[in-house]
């Protein structure tokens, strides 16, 4: 026998009295914790993808879309830009570095990106097997691509036209016959590169601009490209986007000015990202707000159930005093009941949020290839625990004080 056992017996004696409190609390805590997890996981994911990239130079369109397409790789690109035009901007002394990205094909819905070694290097990607692509039609696979396709160094594959989502029944979708050779596989970096197939920019150009020469079948360009000039001397090459790192402050305004009267636009990653997080944040805060209301209701419910049980049990509490229990013992007993209830609700809530995150994670992985599963307790949840415990103690304080101040003679005379 100890006080904790007594507390536990009292809680399980009439489970219905406390069931509502625990269910409410676990849902409230579960949703709040899920929001905290999502915010942390997606925030980290975003940060890993942004990784100091300041601007995206891409075709005119929605700036947010050009960030989503070229930094996060979750949306369609806004179109193509001309290398000759882009050169004026990327050669500007305010530009520290410009990483080229050329989309065109996909393999089993994984985007094939024509770029140079700067791209994986910028994200700190390390080749785990083989080497980095160097020659046309050499490909280096992101870790997820390698895991899902089971392709290995030395294997070959042929690409499908379109940057992604090319369904089998899409008439636009056709295969290019010239095979890619896998020369390397990257280590997992946690960024979008994990889901990309990297090759040289020239490869993308060769597949598309000289597609007619490489393949026998007619080649239709999705973009309805009419300026498809085959100038052998200075071919007007196209690029999907450049990821730009600035050299000095104020570069955005100056560089942006240079895109006027062109088909290009410069998107500011920080601005677009905060817009994205804001939109996303409104959703998160709404859900969190609802969860906080549920949690508050659960505290009221705990308060009421403790108060009712105090009424029901006042004789036995008085009786415990006649058996030698002090006022403080009864105070602790009631307080402990509140705390144990709150801890039960919190634990159930944390389990619920893990289940929720795994379900959401599976959904996100299918549609965005985003891996957000996490089982550990994050620091914000410890703060949540502290807040929950504090409010739990406050909710049981009044019943506990009533037990402390009880007149045992009066209580037992009316028995």
């Amino acid at each position: 026998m100890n006080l904790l056992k007594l507390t536990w017996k009292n809680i399980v004696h009439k489970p219905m009295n406390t069931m509502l409190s625990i269910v409410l609390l676990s849902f409230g805590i579960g949703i709040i914790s899920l929001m905290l997890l999502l915010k942390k996981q997606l925030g980290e994911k975003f940060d890993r993808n942004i990784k100091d990239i300041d601007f995206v130079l891409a075709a005119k369109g929605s700036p947010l879309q050009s960030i989503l397409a070229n930094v996060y790789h979750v949306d369609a690109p806004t179109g193509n830009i001309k290398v000759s035009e882009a050169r004026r901007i990327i050669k500007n002394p305010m530009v520290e570095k410009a990483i080229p990205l050329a989309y065109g094909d996909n393999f089993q819905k994984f985007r094939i990106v024509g770029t140079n070694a700067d791209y994986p290097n910028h994200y700190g990607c390390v080749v785990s097997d083989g080497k980095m692509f160097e020659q046309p039609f050499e490909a280096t696979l992101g870790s997820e691509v390698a895991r899902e396709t089971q392709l290995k160094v030395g294997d070959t594959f042929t690409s499908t036209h379109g940057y992604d989502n090319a369904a089998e029944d899409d008439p636009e979708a056709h295969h290019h016959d010239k095979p890619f050779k896998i020369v390397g596989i990257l280590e997992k970096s946690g960024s979008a590169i994990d889901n990309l197939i990297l090759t040289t920019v020239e490869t993308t150009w060769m597949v598309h601009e000289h597609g007619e020469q490489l393949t026998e079948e007619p080649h239709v360009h999705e973009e309805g490209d009419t300026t498809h000039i085959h100038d052998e001397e200075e071919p007007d090459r196209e690029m999907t986007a450049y990821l730009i790192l600035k050299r000095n402050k104020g570069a955005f305004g100056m560089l942006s000015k240079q895109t006027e009267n062109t088909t290009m636009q410069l998107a500011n990653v920080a601005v677009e990202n905060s817009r994205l997080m804001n939109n996303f944040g409104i959703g998160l805060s709404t859900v969190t707000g609802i969860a906080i209301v549920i949690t508050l209701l659960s505290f009221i419910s705990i308060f009421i159930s403790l108060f009712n049980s105090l009424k029901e049990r006042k004789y036995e509490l008085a009786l415990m005093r006649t058996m030698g229990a002090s006022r403080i013992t009864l105070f602790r007993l009631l307080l402990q009941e509140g705390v144990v209830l709150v801890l039960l609700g919190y634990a159930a809530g944390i389990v619920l949020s893990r289940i929720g995150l795994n379900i959401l994670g599976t959904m996100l992985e299918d549609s965005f290839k985003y891996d957000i599963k996490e089982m550990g307790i994050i620091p914000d949840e410890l703060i949540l625990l502290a807040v929950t415990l504090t409010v739990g103690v406050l909710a049981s304080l009044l019943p506990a004080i009533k037990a402390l101040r009880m007149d045992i003679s009066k209580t037992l005379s009316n028995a």
Partner: protein
Amino acid sequence: MLRTQQLKFEYPEGNSFEFPDIQCGNNEHLLILGESGKGKTTLLHLLAGMLKPTSGDVVINETKTSLLAGSAMDKFRGNQIGIIFQTAHFVDSLSVIDNLILPQFLSGKIIEREKAKSILNRLNLSDKLNVKPGKLSVGEQQRVAIARAVINHPTLILADEPTSALDDLNAKEVIDLLEEQAKLTGASLIIVTHDKRLKDRFFKQVTL
């Protein structure tokens, strides 16, 4: 063992009681008789230290309990006094055996489960060990209450109308048990009642 001196108690609402001096020696059994409204329960609560007298003293084993404060009184009561109430109350969430060891735990004594079992055996309740007290009959409940009152080997057993809710058969059984247990533990026994059935059973009586 126990004596009171000019014991007086006044309720805040105005009811006031003056009690005759009471003496009860070691191993003595004392019956305090009184009609309703004579302050029987008040007297018992004063003797048990659950109420503080307005004036006068209660002395138990040479300790002036009327001077003990708060938790010291709770501790003294837990160690020295066993109390039986008119209707038996229990901690509903605990089984009969756990209710029996509760006084040991609450008064800070070593928990002796075997001792609790042997007392229940003597009271013919050995088959009710793990039953919740709410499932017992009134007579059985009163017997468990007696077992609980004697488990800490009190020097004083106080009983408030222990028989008034019981029929003749059960009443006799309960009083027999009370006397037997008091003798076994060597405790003094004070019964406060208006139950005339008990009049002939006790040699020492005080009428309020």
